[in-house]
């Protein structure tokens, strides 16, 4: 049960303003059953009563977080391998962060400095290209670690995973639309990948908010300028599902980004170019038909010079 051209309806956080129901009506998502993925909520997975109150469609959670917990409890070999991979990913991220810090400082200084326009522009381009090179390298290393794990533990050949994947396929066969909630974006992506959902969801309509929207992109970029210890440099944490290539989504940007720091925002935009960086604040909406933007409301994209402009559908 799959639509001809799948829709991707992306929303910002569903607090304090809830726009899920209105957005679904606006985009013509029918009233058929919906499969929910709330693994980003971790132990609160499946607490979807609040969501159910907003929509008429029957909802059923695919429980991919709990399925993983059950697998870990039953399969020490899988659990140990998963932990080992996570330890290596953490180490990889630490080393990336260490190198990133210095390149970011250099790039910010280069963007702030004055001088002969041609000379400065060339140095800025180079500083940003170094950042991109590090990002590419890191993404490659992260992907290697995932692939090493996936070779042994995948839904095609690892029996326990296959059983769950079959159950998930069965549930998905009865729905045209999947709904992916926010939450912990890394946990969410890891669990999606474990059950091959990055492939299995491709043909479905997907409604997603915040972290759920981030995982649809080809790269997942973590960001938060307002942590208790101050701003942190944005980090690529890994690949997403790749359903919306060329887009970096920034949920809750109004609360997480220092929008007035033009140099910082400009650097953000230029570092991830040619991808388009788009905000998804509370109340905003982006609708894609396959990979084509069809509708938007209150979402903004960051321009090359660090300004925020409304996203307009073609």
């Amino acid at each position, binding site marked *: 049960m799959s639509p001809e051209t799948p829709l991707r309806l992306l929303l910002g956080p569903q607090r304090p303003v809830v726009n899920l129901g209105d957005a679904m009506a606006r985009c013509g998502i029918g009233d058929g059953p919906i499969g929910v993925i709330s693994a980003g909520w971790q132990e*609160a997975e499946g607490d979807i009563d609040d969501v159910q109150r907003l929509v008429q469609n029957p909802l059923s959670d695919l429980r991919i977080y709990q399925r993983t*917990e059950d697998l870990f409890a039953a399969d020490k070999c899988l659990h140990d391998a998963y932990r080992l991979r996570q330890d290596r990913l953490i180490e990889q991220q630490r080393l990336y962060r260490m190198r990133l810090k210095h390149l970011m400082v250099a790039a910010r200084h280069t963007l702030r400095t004055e001088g002969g326009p041609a000379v400065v522009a060339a140095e800025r381009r180079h500083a940003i290209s170094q950042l991109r090179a590090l990002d590419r390298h890191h993404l490659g290393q992260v992907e290697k670690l995932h692939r090493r794990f996936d070779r042994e533990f995948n839904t095609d050949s690892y029996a326990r995973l296959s059983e769950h994947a079959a159950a998930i396929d069965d549930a998905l066969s009865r729905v045209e639309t999947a709904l992916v909630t*926010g*939450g912990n974006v890394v946990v969410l992506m890891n669990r999606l990948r474990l059950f091959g959902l990055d492939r299995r969801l491709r043909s479905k309509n997907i409604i997603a908010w*915040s972290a759920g929207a981030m995982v649809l992109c080809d790269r997942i970029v973590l960001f938060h300028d307002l942590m*208790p*210890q101050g701003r942190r440099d944005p980090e690529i*944490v890994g690949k997403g599902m790749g359903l919306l290539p060329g887009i970096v989504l920034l949920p*809750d940007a109004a609360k997480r980004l220092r929008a007035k720091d033009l140099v910082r925002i400009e650097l953000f935009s230029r570092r991830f170019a040619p991808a388009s960086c788009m905000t998804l604040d509370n109340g905003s909406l982006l609708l894609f038909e396959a990979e084509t933007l069809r509708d938007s409301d209150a979402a903004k994209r960051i321009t090359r010079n660090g300004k925020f402009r409304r996203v307009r559908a073609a």
Partner: protein
Amino acid sequence: MNPALRKLLRKGTPEPADIDALLAEQDFPLVDGPDVTFVFRGTVDEVNLRCWISGLDTAQPFQALPGTDLWVTTIELPKGSRIEYKFEVVTGDSRELILDPLNGVIAEDPFGANSVCQGFGYVRPEWTLHDPQARAGSLQSLQVDSSVFRESREIQVYLPATFRSNRRYPLLIVHDGIDYLRYADLKIVLDNLIHRLEIPSVIVALIQSPDRLKEYGGDDRHARFLVDELLPRMSDAFPLLDGPGARCLMGASFGGVAALHAAWRFPEQFGSLLLQSGSFAFSDIGRHRRGPVFDSVVRFMNELREQPGRPAERIFMSCGMYESLIYENRSLVPHLQSKGVDLRFEEARDAHNWQNWRDRLRTGLSWLMPGPAWLVYE
């Protein structure tokens, strides 16, 4: 003179009704930029401002405003300062320390309460206030049988609102834990920081010593109690993450000494320390002058300064600029950093008190135990 008082005296001696109106209209003490004016009304012989601030006189006299029963004194407080104080009121042979009758803001501590002056630029952090959105964790008692102290000791344990017995949690051990709950709103702070994802869900052991000046002053028995008795008891009773990286020791004043001492005596046991206004007294030569209660502290600190080792991977230290211990705290920083400790030191325009310690908890805890805010997009 403060503008409100100048206005009161503009037309000469004010009527009692004008004074009543002033006292009803204004918040006290009167804060006008860095100038803070304390006001007392009463028929007395003498009034002094008593605040235990290193750098200020311990007793600052008030002046009587002629023709009135008002007494005033003004001090200069740098931006962002917060001080605690009392009024010393003298009538005949009677000399009494009282709270500022015109100021309802007080801070309680184990010895009673003080009035609080929130200087220009100081705002109580909102994360120290009850947030109805934040789910409340729970407190439960736990008995710890101690062969070191030859008695059973009751401690309190904080469990986060999202506690699940099948998950594992980092452990925070808090010296003077009950005082932290009472006087530094620790439970509210934990609930709020966990709710905001600024720290992870954490299990907190709140310990309280019956003889803290002795046991917390560099006493090996206390270090053994923590490592050999409390840690195993906590591990038996609760699902804790393994390893020093998931264990943090915290304390203020002598509690800071106890935390540092235990980590120094048993390196590799605690990955991080939160030390607030630690009573880190030492002597470079001759005898120290802080009294006999500090003898064991000075012995330990002198030994630690000779051989700091690496008590923990990460240490967050804070101290008020208006406490005499600022010198000792500042001087400890390079000793520990030189041994490769990842150390952050925060100074505050405050003194040796619980609200100073409360106000530093967010930066300290979130640095030592960063929460998942970075990864969570709700």
